[in-house]
């Protein structure tokens, strides 16, 4: 990836080429026949043994008084179970969705934090194709449990007719609610994660390549202090990213839990 970014920064003679969507189209690491394996695919595959290995190690030596590793594992699990699932779905049904929410949270979190780990430095979910299956899975689950709970017609009525509304205004409300609940939700769920990862990583590339260009390649020594400023901004944005990466994993899980909770809720 380093070579692509450096090429992008200095490919035109003397000028600086700003990074864009093309900076995310990495060359394949290796190919199997016609099938190119790229860096985000490898990162995605790497995240699974990391998560499974960590929680396996954390729960291997179970003790009543937890050790450090067990404490961290239990803290993350408790955060998803109590802070996200129970509060959003309700204490009656939440337990059977905890595995899904926990898997989603850790998977998204680890893949997001790849963005700031040296040498990995690429958030897998800045490629839209990796986000779409997650959002589709969530869509199938929350609509599936809604249909299973209320029946197809009952579920459609449940999501499109808000309680307490009667009369001709329903002609306006029903299409709007259908659009927002069934069609727009999965699209924004996928786009939110993708756009945040994409924009954050683009900002980091911009400050890093900008600093490199201003200090090393610009040929004007007066540009160097601005390059140092750009470098410092890059470090500050990295700290902002530390927060955003966690927040996006949290929001993705929380919204999944809320959608499931909304689909399961009884008429009131």
């Amino acid at each position, binding site marked *: 990836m380093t070579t692509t970014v450096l090429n992008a920064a200095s490919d035109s003679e003397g000028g600086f080429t700003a990074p864009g969507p093309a900076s995310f189209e990495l060359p394949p690491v290796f190919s199997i026949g016609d099938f190119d394996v790229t860096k985000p695919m490898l990162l995605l595959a790497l995240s699974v043994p990391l998560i499974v290995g960590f929680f396996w190690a954390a729960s291997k030596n179970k003790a009543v008084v937890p050790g450090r590793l067990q404490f961290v594992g239990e803290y993350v699990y408790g955060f998803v179970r109590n802070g996200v699932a129970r509060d*959003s779905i309700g204490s009656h049904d939440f337990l059977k969705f905890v595995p899904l929410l926990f898997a989603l949270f850790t998977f998204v979190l680890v893949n997001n934090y790849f963005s700031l780990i040296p040498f990995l430095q690429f958030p897998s979910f800045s490629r839209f194709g990796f986000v779409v299956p997650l959002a589709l899975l969530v869509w199938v689950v929350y609509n599936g449990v809604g249909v299973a709970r209320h029946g197809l017609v009952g579920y459609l009525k449940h999501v499109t007719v808000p309680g307490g509304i009667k009369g001709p205004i329903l002609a306006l409300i029903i299409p709007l609610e259908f659009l927002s609940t069934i069609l*727009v939700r999965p699209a924004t769920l996928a*786009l*939110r994660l993708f*756009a945040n990862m994409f*924009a954050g990583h683009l900002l980091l590339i911009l400050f890093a390549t900008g600093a490199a260009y201003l200090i090393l390649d610009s040929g004007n020594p007066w540009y160097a202090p601005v390059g140092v400023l750009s470098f410092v901004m890059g470090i500050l944005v990295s700290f902002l990213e530390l927060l955003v990466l966690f927040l996006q994993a949290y929001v993705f899980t929380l919204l999944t839990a*809320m959608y499931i909770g909304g689909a399961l809720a009884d008429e009131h």
Partner: protein
Amino acid sequence: MDGNLNMIGYGLAAVGPGIGIGLIFAAYINGVARQPEAQSRLQSIAILGFALAEALAIIGIALAFVL
């Protein structure tokens, strides 16, 4: 220097959701300051409102790159 007018348009479009998200979290902080025990209930509502307001900015960034 080359660029795209879409990006200026996106910058303008992001003002609306920016104000909206600011108002949502201002109300959330106000609520928690007045009644700290309501935090867990207010938090999920605030995040939901934030997600809905942010959706506009997200649709904007998607269109800025697509159009």
